[in-house]
């Protein structure tokens, strides 16, 4: 947002240097975060997400064992289905792998899929919304027709067909999520754009000779940004949940074990009733991650609510 810094450009004009009387644009994001930190659940959610980020970034050096390494007991036999112990905190799988290490490395897939798919869906969704809402007419009809079509596509059959065509990889999972889930962002933000574009300051920009792209990105986008942040947070949880679901059904990336893949392994090994320590960690992590991003999203929502907002509008 900080495309031009007047102080930098005009400092030499011989005028007294302008002191920023009020918060600059840069601090707008800071204010958004302060808004989240004022919200109790939002703060907790943010901390949980940061912990997952940390695990995702440094997971390799945190895990005691390789997630796919076979573990052997002292007597040389494979550690099959060992319950939690001091050596294997979350126990081992029936194939002799360490559940704790797998759980930690699953965070990386969750973070990558969650945030990449959220960024892509929200990027597509908000651009579609901005152009459809602002331009109106045929473009709006076309783009909203596309939204209706994506709403009509049932997710699972679509995902299964695409995975079998493209192969199982987390990039394809991100692609599938991105292809469908921009629809809700597009609809909601378009509605906001429709009301914003009738505001006098938009007419005023038009009277000054502003072109559509300029009005959209300089005047409308900054005013829908809180909503975009809210939808990004919600899209993160959708992304993680969808990836887990697909992996549980066996469409996950075999190279990167995710929480969904772990559940799928446990289910196929028939461990659901015998080895609770194999089921609970990935399940709890999915629930925790999704809840955390919802809590951050709720805090964003509170900050976009005009009754709670302390500035703007």
């Amino acid at each position, binding site marked *: 947002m900080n495309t031009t810094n*007047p102080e930098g*450009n*005009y400092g030499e*004009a011989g*005028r*007294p240097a*302008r*002191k*920023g*009387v*009020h918060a*600059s*644009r840069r601090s*707008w994001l800071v204010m958004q975060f302060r808004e989240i930190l004022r919200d109790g659940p939002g703060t907790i959610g943010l901390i949980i997400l940061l912990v997952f980020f940390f695990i995702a970034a440094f997971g390799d050096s945190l895990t005691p064992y390789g997630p796919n390494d076979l573990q052997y007991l002292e007597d040389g036999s494979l550690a099959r289905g060992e319950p939690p112990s001091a050596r294997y905190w979350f126990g081992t799988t029936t194939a002799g792998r360490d559940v704790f290490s797998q759980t930690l490395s699953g965070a990386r897939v969750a973070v990558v899929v969650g945030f990449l798919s959220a960024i892509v869906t929200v990027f597509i969704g908000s651009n579609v919304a901005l152009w459809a809402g602002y331009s109106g007419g045929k473009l709006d009809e076309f783009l909203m027709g596309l939204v209706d079509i994506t709403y009509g596509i049932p997710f699972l059959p679509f995902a299964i067909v695409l995975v079998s065509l493209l192969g199982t990889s987390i990039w394809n999972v991100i692609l599938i999520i991105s292809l469908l889930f921009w629809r809700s962002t597009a609809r909601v933000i378009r509605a906001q754009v429709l009301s914003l574009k009738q*505001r*006098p*300051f938009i*007419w*005023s*920009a*038009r*009277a*000054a*000779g*502003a072109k559509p792209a*300029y009005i959209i990105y300089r*005047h409308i986008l*900054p*005013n829908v940004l809180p909503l975009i942040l809210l939808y990004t947070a919600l899209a993160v949880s959708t992304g993680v949940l969808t990836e887990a679901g697909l992996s549980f059904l066996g469409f996950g990336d075999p190279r990167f074990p995710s929480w969904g893949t772990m559940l799928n392994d446990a289910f196929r090994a028939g461990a659901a009733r015998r080895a609770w320590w194999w089921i609970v960690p990935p399940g709890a992590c999915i629930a925790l991650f999704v809840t955390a991003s919802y809590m951050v999203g709720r805090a964003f929502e509170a900050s976009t609510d005009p009754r709670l907002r302390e*500035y*703007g*509008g």
Partner: protein
Amino acid sequence: MNDSNSIVFAVKDLQKWYPLQQGFIDALLKREKQQFVRAVDGVSFSIRAGEIIGIVGESGSGKTTVGMTALRLYEPTGGTITFMGEDITTHSGDRLQNFRRQAQIIFQNPYESLNPRSTVFESVVEPLRLNKIGTKDEHLERVLQALERAEISPPENFLDRYPHELSGGQRQRLAIARAIVIEPKFLVADEPVSMLDVSIRAGILNLLKQLSQTLETAILYVSHDLSTVRYICDRTMTMYAGKLIELGDTNTVIDEPFHPYTQLLIKAIPEVDPDVKRERVLLEGEVPNLVNPPTGCRFHPRCPFVMDRCRVEEPSLQEVKPKHWAACHLY
């Protein structure tokens, strides 16, 4: 109306019709003819450099639509718009941009006409940047000058503020600074003081008056408030149901109005002095439906002097007295 060659801006037979939404089946079968809301239906006037011309009329008479259409913010349905002797009705691209560079608008609500996320500097410099006027070094000078002209002082202290940190009057001055930073030849002021406290109205009006004199700007002042119109307008037009019904020097229009509608409008102004006995007149009825306007004179259903002729024949704008036109069969 066209006695001077210093005419900056003129419209002729300006029309703005909005198509009425039809049912799908009706449209398919062409069961009904497409209907229109005739918001502006054949309005002609011209403005000279440095002149302020007012449009008055009640809500729904089409006065704001005239302002928006004059600036090509709404596309006219018919008629011509002339700016500096050039027909700009169908201009687009660079030629339209050239018009935008010299025409500006001030809106009614200063709380809505500024982007809440732009600083004062960004709001005021925008017309310069968009129209590629001046270098970056000149921008700051011109912004400060515009703020000074709009009597925001000291301007340096306001550059980094956001609209929500300003009062209503300051915001409207800021909107004016933004409009005059490009030194426009033509300015539409759409009820610029109606949302402001009475105490600061005079300041804003004096400012507009001064600008029209120093910058030779032609101003189209849209208002329903006859007292402010009298205060700053050289000439005044009355609009009713999308039609121009009276046009003349402000003083004569207000003191000796010809059209019965203007007469009633002026009688509706509250009297300050409680001792002055005044005939109370109520304007009955409402603005007519603009989809099917009344035949003949559009005012005839509410007119106290209605004649048979008024119901059939539409009166045209006639010069009743020198430089004073009215559209009424009485004259």
